[in-house]
């Protein structure tokens, strides 16, 4: 092969490498815009600031506390803030359940938008929301019982 073809091939290979790098960057461009689209479809904070009409109407009733209705801890209440709540027997749980039928890290309550969601963390005995076993994260309405082992928890305004 002559010298010219070799040079063209050599430079072509370097160009190809950079084409790959730039295609990768182009492919992840959408990902770089952090928080542009929220997963729940709620408008982001920046969008709300630009256009106040987008902001969600304030819900009629917020869940402000968590009440243990049944089980060994019956009567316990806990205020709900902005942060997720870990339910389980483990010491690091936000609400440590003294329940032999609960797993160490049993379930997680987390706020999203104006609602709280419950998600099972792979517990042995399962988490039940209104007597239906959770298969994925579910929104929790007020006064709906969440059963974990022998403990029943409700959200209250």
């Amino acid at each position, binding site marked *: 092969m002559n010298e010219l073809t070799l040079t063209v*091939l050599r430079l072509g*290979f*370097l160009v190809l*490498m950079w084409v*790959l*790098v730039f295609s990768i960057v182009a492919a992840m461009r959408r990902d770089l815009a952090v928080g542009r689209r929220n997963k729940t*479809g709620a408008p982001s904070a920046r969008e709300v600031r630009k256009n106040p009409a987008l902001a969600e109407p304030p819900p009629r009733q917020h869940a402000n506390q968590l009440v243990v209705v049944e089980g060994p801890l019956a009567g316990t209440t806990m205020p709900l803030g902005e942060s997720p709540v870990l339910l389980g027997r483990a010491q690091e749980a936000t609400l440590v359940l003294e329940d032999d039928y609960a797993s160490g890290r049993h379930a997680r309550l987390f706020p999203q938008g104006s609602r709280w969601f419950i998600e099972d963390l792979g517990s042995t005995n399962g988490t039940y929301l209104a007597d239906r*076993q959770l298969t994925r994260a579910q929104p929790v309405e007020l006064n709906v019982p969440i059963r974990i082992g022998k403990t029943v928890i409700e959200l209250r305004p």
Partner: protein
Amino acid sequence: MSAVEAVRPRRNIELVLLILALLVGCGANAMTAINEGAALSNDFWMESGILAAASLALHISLRFRAKYADPVILPIVVTLNGLGLAMIHRLDTPDTDYGNAQARWTVIGMALAAVVIWVLKDHRTLRRFTYISLILSAVLLVLPLVPGVTAGDINGAQVWIKFGSATFQPGEVAKITIGIFFAGYLSTNRDLILLAGRRIGKLQLPRFRDLGPMIIAWLASIGILIFQHDLGMSILFFGIFISMIYVATSRASWALLGILLMFGGAMAASIIFPHIRLRIDGWLNAFDPDVFGRQFGGSYQIVQGLFGMANGGIIGTGLGQGRPDLVPFAHSDMIIAAFGEELGLVGLFAIVMLYALLVTRGMRAAIGARDAFGKLLACGLSAGIGLQCFVVIGGVTRLIPLTGLTTPFLAAGGSSLLANWIIIALMLVISNAARRPLDTTPLQPEEAPNPATTSSLRKQTAAETTLTQAVKKQ
């Protein structure tokens, strides 16, 4: 729910990028043959075929098991692995066969990655093995020192074990287990470590008893340095720990303390151990004729690498047209110098860019992950890859003393390739969990939320209806 549609699996983009990646990887292999004036050999077709088949198999595994995994991680890694294969193949002399060995290990590594993707549905199951991982890492790290299993002192470091005729570097796998341990430990005890300590100026110092794990990690790293003579691995382990504890606590004081400890340890080691002192001397006075010509711990290797890269210049000599074989260990420790010579600054920067992108994708998976364990694991693993690249490329370009770490995916070395493919599989699994849309729509009535009670109920009613029908017939 238009926003839910916005999160797309993006596997097709991955396929397109993967084809481009294979074009670069196999193209590099073909270029060496063309430049050397040889016809494309059987080895070329076999290696390209293997690489293409294995990466497509991984891509298909992702389509089935981790639909939402990050679409750019796999193409980046396939490119790097393909480039490494090409360069190792190109550096093979008629007596050596590192190229085919590397191809074999690539297949094994990719197969293991596929196994991890198929078996590990949820990375959170790894959290259960927190303390098992700790024991496993300790065993893996001590293994090269156990008589009978150890492969002895190879090139000045005692980090190898042997199975029959094959050797393996268990420390590479320990990188993963130690990551799992730190992630599990820190995600559980994060709050305890964060508890108030003494505050001096802007620095919040940790309490003494919280320093326990840090001191253990430090002692382990120093142990690797003293007993196995492996400076690179020791920096890597401690670096992973420091980056993970920094991410877990967001306290600069920890990172600062860790770096001071590491420097102190390295200083002490350089005073006590002659071979480390020689390394540092070879780095500082590389061009001194005495140091250059010294039999042990001289700077011959690093200076040859620098000459090679200088010969390559901006656009390189072209694959197959330089003389990277003049550098000792050009196929493993110094492969970056070989790329610098044959692809030039432009090509080397593309490679560094690919590593940077890989690390950012790992960090992106960490940001997106919904659990602390996944966050810390993704972060620790990608920090490990980044640190390894820094230590190797920094060593080859004489920014820091040269240490014996492998360049991830590029350098010849089965254990490293294997471990890094497993790390990539873990990153893919975590990124899948991070990017998967959280399904929060109300349950459909037919979804049968409680299989236990509903199914037994249905059976019962079915039995009842047959019974009533039977009664009616009578």
